């Protein structure tokens, strides 16, 4: 059984924006990250999954439970962290968490003490007096304290200082090692690259690609750094060259196609320096958002580039 199973799930707002139809399966014990800029539909997808928004298309299950019919049971097994977590300002961190634990029926406070100690958060202060980072830590405790099977994180490290970011990442990694499933959205490519097993890229409400991080980087796509000797003005006209930019004497771009053909074209302009590597995830991401690269036009590609 998949931890998360989306079957054509969508939520469209009245203005026609939102999430169109998303098909996706996330396995138990997997960390799945999905990327997209603001407005791509990441938060809408998460809110639909959590029952804050009703699906306008399709259906979904979390741990085999229907997200609409079994919302309460789903909530007992899911931990959620919002981008800008808000708890009750007038209550202390402890009072907020105590309330959530009582509603969830959690009686064992040892995990709370343990996690709070590790994150170094003072739960005795009123929530409104806490710094942004400390608020996020309290919200992380809220997401984890009932030991959920599935963690849903909406841009969990946005606006946080590097120390808290690192704490979040290490908790995600730890949860995976405990067999928990993590479903997280982000526009921080390095973060997803660091923790996710698979990545989805969402664009204008549609998941345009889903693949393992390493496969996504290797999908016939290479990151090329080239220092030409002569005139290279014909380079942009070569099929498969995208995200081209000049950096001093070097020309950097992402290339999808046969490497020998590219190299023989470069030899005409003379090669001072050339490196061809797997692209960083940022380049993969740009290829979907920049210059209309393959994948963004032809429907969703799953697992190694298979078209659907």
């Amino acid at each position, binding site marked *: 059984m998949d931890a998360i199973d989306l079957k054509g799930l969508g939520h469209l707002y009245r203005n026609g924006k939102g999430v169109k139809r998303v098909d996706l399966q996330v396995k138990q014990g997997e960390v799945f990250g999905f990327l997209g800029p603001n407005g791509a539909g990441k938060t809408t997808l998460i809110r639909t999954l959590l029952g804050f928004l009703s699906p306008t298309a399709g259906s979904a299950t979390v741990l085999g439970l229907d997200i609409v019919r079994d919302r309460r049971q789903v*909530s007992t097994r899911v931990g959620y962290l919002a981008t800008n977590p808000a708890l*009750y300002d007038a209550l202390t961190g402890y009072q907020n968490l105590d309330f959530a634990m009582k509603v969830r029926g959690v009686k064992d406070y040892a995990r709370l003490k343990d996690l709070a100690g590790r994150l170094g958060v003072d739960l005795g202060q009123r929530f409104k007096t806490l710094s942004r980072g400390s608020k996020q830590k309290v919200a992380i405790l809220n997401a984890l304290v009932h030991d959920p099977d599935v963690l849903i994180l909406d841009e969990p490290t946005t606006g946080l200082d590097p120390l808290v970011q690192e704490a979040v990442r290490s908790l995600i990694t730890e949860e995976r090692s405990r067999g928990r499933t993590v479903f997280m959205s982000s526009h921080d490519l390095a973060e997803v690259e660091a923790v996710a097993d698979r990545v989805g890229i969402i664009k204008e409400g549609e998941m345009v690609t889903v693949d393992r991080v390493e496969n996504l980087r290797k999908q016939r796509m290479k990151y090329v750094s080239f220092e030409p000797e002569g005139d290279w003005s014909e380079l942009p006209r070569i099929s498969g060259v995208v995200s081209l930019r000049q950096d001093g004497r070097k020309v950097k771009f992402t290339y999808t196609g046969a490497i020998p053909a590219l190299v023989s074209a470069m030899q005409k302009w003379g090669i001072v320096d050339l490196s061809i590597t797997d692209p960083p995830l940022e380049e993969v991401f740009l290829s979907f958002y920049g210059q209309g690269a393959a994948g963004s036009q032809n429907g969703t590609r799953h697992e190694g580039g298979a078209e659907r």
Partner: protein
Amino acid sequence: MTLFRQYFRAQRAGLLIWVGSNGVLAWVLASTSKPMELGGTLGSFMSKLADKFPPGLRGMFGLVPGLSPIDSLIQAKIGIWLAIILPVYACILAASAVSREVDRGTADFLLALPVRRRDILIARWAVMAANLGLIAFSTWGALYVGLKMSSAVANFTGYFWMTAQAWFLGLAAGSLAMLGSMWAREHDGALRWALASVGVLFTVDLGMRVAEMPKLARFFNPFTYFDSLQPLLRKSLVWGDAAVLLGASLVSLWLAVRVFESKQIEA
């Protein structure tokens, strides 16, 4: 019960201010009424006031024959005060029950918990009812203490039922505001609409009473079902009016729950 306790706790600072300010006001009025009565100031003040008031409003402001000057003062000041202040407080609380939570993002925290939306809204309604009761009856308590301290002869039972009648009015106004806030896109707008509605309905009721329009013609207005004089004269609740206000409250709550259950909580 956990939902009730948590929301009550979150509202307690505001509640203390309302209870304190109403209590002090009632106590000051009560403790000064006896000396004023002994000096004859109160009786002469109330009768001069009665001459100025249109007949349709005299009953509402305690300016009727047969009431002692102290009863008239308490009815005119505390009765009308509660009829305004309890609906205002109820609207503030009701308008924030959902829309402020959505604005601030605490709705996400709540809705991610294994609770039904129905239970959240009912808990908020119950907190509103409890807080209104605390404000209303602490006001009555302050009246009681103030009048007892000055050894005034007063209609404590009548004041109690007048306060209870105002509680029903506040509950109805708050429940209607809660229902209205379900369509609000943001909290400030919901609050403005609720408070403006209270002001308009109060003024319309006042105008219709001045014009001596029958109760049937004013049936749509919650303020129609509050008359601070009747509980004083009867020394009991006006059961029919209380039933109408309670019925309006429960129907509004039921409708609000229906709307909330399908409300889309956007980021």
